[in-house]
């Protein structure tokens, strides 16, 4: 088995690590925060993150440093950093691990991020179902307040920061950053149209950056070891390591820390121990259900943002779902569209009407009906969802549904033949 490259999971993988403030400090924690408060200006942190090439781990892979540099300055309004811990993409369970096992590493990253964007009150949005994660993180925040790592005049350096956890009510769409902001403001969680982007008018109309848990957790390493050390990992433009949530028909499902650019097949075979029961691989969804499915012969692709985009899919939140030869792809497609149909917020037309129509049509095949005409129609309707909706939900639904039909047409045909 390939060795994990341990940055984020270094503490978690060391035996007996309790994840408390004491344990984190013993492992060298909060030195990055001290370093930042000691001698770095917020702009220096942004530049360092830019130089590290860190890209957002929530799904879109947008360069974090650049996102921060877009934030409107001198507006007279407060700036906000909001951590997106909704982790609602099916197949993804890496952020939960970070919250549960090493909350202080994340908190340190969050604090550095808040310092970088001049935020004095950060919010951590966690899905309401993750009760344990919320409790665990709240305990860590309480510890940090007690140790004067949060609150007024942190470490005596004149930096004030409050952190608040906000539990969501369990809607997938609230993982979309602007829907998250609406939800945080106490409204119905629905994506907003852009522009204006949150960097200009986000939470409460103020400049806001929304960052993923894993993204922020990388910051202590980047500050401590330097941007160069981080950029040296992975491939050009896809630097660092990332946490892969490996699930499905593999022998050893779980979260693995993998250097960017390691081939997808290696992730499955070596980290995941191969397809379970020695069966043959049929398909892989490489980035959560919003990513287009890959056929078995397509998995020899470097697992990073750009290579997967080139392969016609996406790395998304690095959630790899593996399907063996016995999997019925029609059922997979149906389960997927059922999810999307259930989770569409409904405000914009193609998504509201299209997801339900697709569900009905794919449901036909599940019921042993359907026809060549309906198959074509699924492809057409799924294609019509692309690029016409207000948020990325339409693309996240239309793309995968079209991919299922285009890559496994024989399985659909088998249903009505």
């Amino acid at each position, binding site marked *: 088995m390939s060795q994990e490259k341990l940055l984020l999971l270094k503490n978690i993988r060391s035996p007996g690590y309790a994840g408390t403030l004491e344990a984190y400090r013993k492992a060298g924690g909060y030195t990055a925060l001290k370093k930042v408060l000691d001698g770095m200006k917020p702009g220096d942190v942004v530049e360092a993150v830019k130089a590290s090439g860190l890209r957002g781990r929530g799904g879109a892979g947008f360069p974090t440093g650049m996102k921060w540099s877009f934030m409107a300055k001198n507006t007279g309004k407060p700036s906000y950093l909001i951590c997106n811990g909704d982790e609602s993409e099916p197949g993804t369970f890496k952020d939960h691990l970070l919250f549960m096992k090493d909350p202080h590493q994340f908190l340190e990253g969050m604090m550095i991020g808040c310092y970088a964007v001049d935020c004095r009150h950060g919010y951590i949005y966690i899905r309401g179902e993750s009760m344990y994660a919320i409790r665990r993180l709240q305990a860590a925040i309480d510890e940090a307040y007690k140790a004067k790592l949060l609150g007024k005049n942190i470490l005596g350096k004149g930096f004030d920061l409050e952190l608040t956890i906000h539990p969501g009510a369990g809607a997938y769409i609230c993982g979309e950053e602007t829907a998250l902001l609406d939800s945080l403001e106490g409204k119905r969680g629905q994506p907003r149209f852009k522009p204006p982007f949150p960097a200009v008018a986000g939470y409460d109309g103020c400049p806001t950056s929304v960052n993923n848990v894993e993204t922020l957790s990388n910051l202590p390493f980047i500050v401590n070891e330097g941007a160069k050390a981080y950029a040296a990992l992975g491939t050009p433009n896809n630097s660092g390591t990332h946490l892969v949530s490996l699930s499905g028909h593999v022998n050893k499902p779980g979260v693995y820390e993998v250097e960017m650019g390691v081939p997808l097949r290696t992730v499955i075979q070596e980290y995941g121990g191969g397809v379970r029961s020695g069966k043959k691989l049929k398909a892989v969804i490489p980035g959560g259900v919003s990513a287009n499915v890959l056929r078995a012969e397509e998995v020899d692709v470097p697992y990073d943002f750009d290579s997967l985009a080139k392969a016609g899919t996406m790395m998304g939140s690095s959630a790899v779902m593996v399907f063996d030869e016995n999997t019925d792809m029609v059922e997979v497609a149906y389960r997927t569209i059922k999810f999307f149909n*259930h*989770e569409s917020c*409904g*405000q914009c*037309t*193609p998504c509201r009407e299209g997801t*339900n*129509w697709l569900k009905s049509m794919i449901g036909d095949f599940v019921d042993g009906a359907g026809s060549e005409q309906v198959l074509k129609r699924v492809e057409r309707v799924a294609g019509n969802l692309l690029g*016409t909706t*207000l948020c990325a939900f339409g693309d996240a639904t239309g793309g995968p549904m079209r991919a299922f039909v285009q890559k496994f047409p024989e399985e659909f045909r088998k249903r009505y033949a």
Partner: protein
Amino acid sequence: MPTFYVDDQPIEFQPGETVLQAVYRHKEIRIPHYCFHPGLKVTAQCRQCLVEIVDMGNGKGIPKLQTSCSTPAADKMKVATANEKVKEGQRLVNEFLLVNHPLDCPICDQAGECDLQDTAFAFGSGHSEMEYEKRVYGWRQVGTFLMLERNRCIHCSRCERFSRDVEGGHDFGMFLRSHELTFDTYEDHQITHKFQGNLADICPVGAITNRDWRFKKRAWKFKKTPTVCTSCSTGCNVTLEQHENRVYRLKPRENPEVNRWWMCDEGRVGFDALNDRTARLLEPHARVRGELRAARWEAAYGAIAARVKALGVTGEQVLALADTHATNEQLFLLTVLLKAAFGGGAAYFPLRRDGPQEQPTHAPPDPFLYSLIMKDKTPNSAGAKALGLLGDEDDKRLKAALAQAPKLLLVLGAPWGDSPAILGAAKQAQLIVQIAAFPGAWRAVSDVLLPGHTHAEQHGTYTNKAGRVQRIRPGLRPPQESRDPLRILQELLAALGKPQELGSAEQVFNALGAQPGAFQGLNWQAVGDLGAVLPGARA
């Protein structure tokens, strides 16, 4: 002013405006849209207004189609609204909208003025690939006269945004999500505020309709006349819609200076009298030995002239009473008549104290809407004041004048018809001449009744509470024997031996504008479609 180009046509815009907001002023360019409404916040959720941004103004285009309602306009931007890519984008959004729409146009009141229907005709294929059961809800009444038919709803959220951001009562909300998303009132809550009709107006389909004319008339039958609401001193700009000389509805007409896009329900339903033929005076009448008898016009005029001469009426013995609905032109002509025929005489108008009538039970986000309903139910108080007519809240002066037992009473319309005290005092006059469409209680006391036109049958102007002079236009055909009060007043002048040929409302108004006084400097053309403020009332 910065300019962008829509299919090569230059469009000027204010910085901060979106493409559709700027294009909306150009009625000749049609970008189909549902959720966008100039009076509501932009949400960009219906996706129908997709356009291609060929050039953002910096030489770069945007590859994906963009919703024009939410895309900020930029200087030198190039927007394509009609190329194949855009057409295809709009077509497929339209297809999605029709997936669950019942297509019950044959029984839908909105048919004929339905945005969805229009767009479907423009883009639709006439054939649907949707083979499954559609969403079905029942219909029910949600307000005093609003029907909600959610099957037809296309989820544009205009009703929700109006309730939240304009009226402020939050009557409509969004419920559930995905294809089950629905716009509805909370727990069968009935809407009771006085701006409900606007909800039916802004609904782009037949989901919210007005029960007043439900199933009564097809929308395309209506003949529409731009005019002004006469139900209070605000003078909301409206369109009077009639078929076969029967008014079916009034709808607000956009005027940013007066009512924006809205009107109140009191004004909206206040047209019943216009359809009334039973109380209408259809031909001239004269009182012969205590009894009213139909008469020819010439005979009536002759009798008036003879009686006036016999009585030897002079200025202080004449009293003119004008109706709340008398136009500026009628009031002006009335004063001209008093002066020319009698050398003077007082003219009274029921002037009332004014102020907003309704206080919202909640703090509205924008107080504008509630400023539309005024206590003064007179469309032309400001005009009467500007023309020097007398009057006060308690009618003390009028009562005192009537107590002097004037010989001649000239009554225009049926003012104070609900006041037995005034009518009783008026009875003392030797001769009462009334020019009215609806004589009302005056019928019992008037000696000569001359049938006039209503405000919906004539040209004219009213002056609203802010001193804005606005035109009314004839939307209905008057009964055959009745005459325009302006003509009657001029014929009276002639009958009394002081002919003054002023002519039409336009000519009378221009004559008024040429005289020193509050109206000086105004003319018919300047008033136009959106009105003009009295020179003296300008801030």
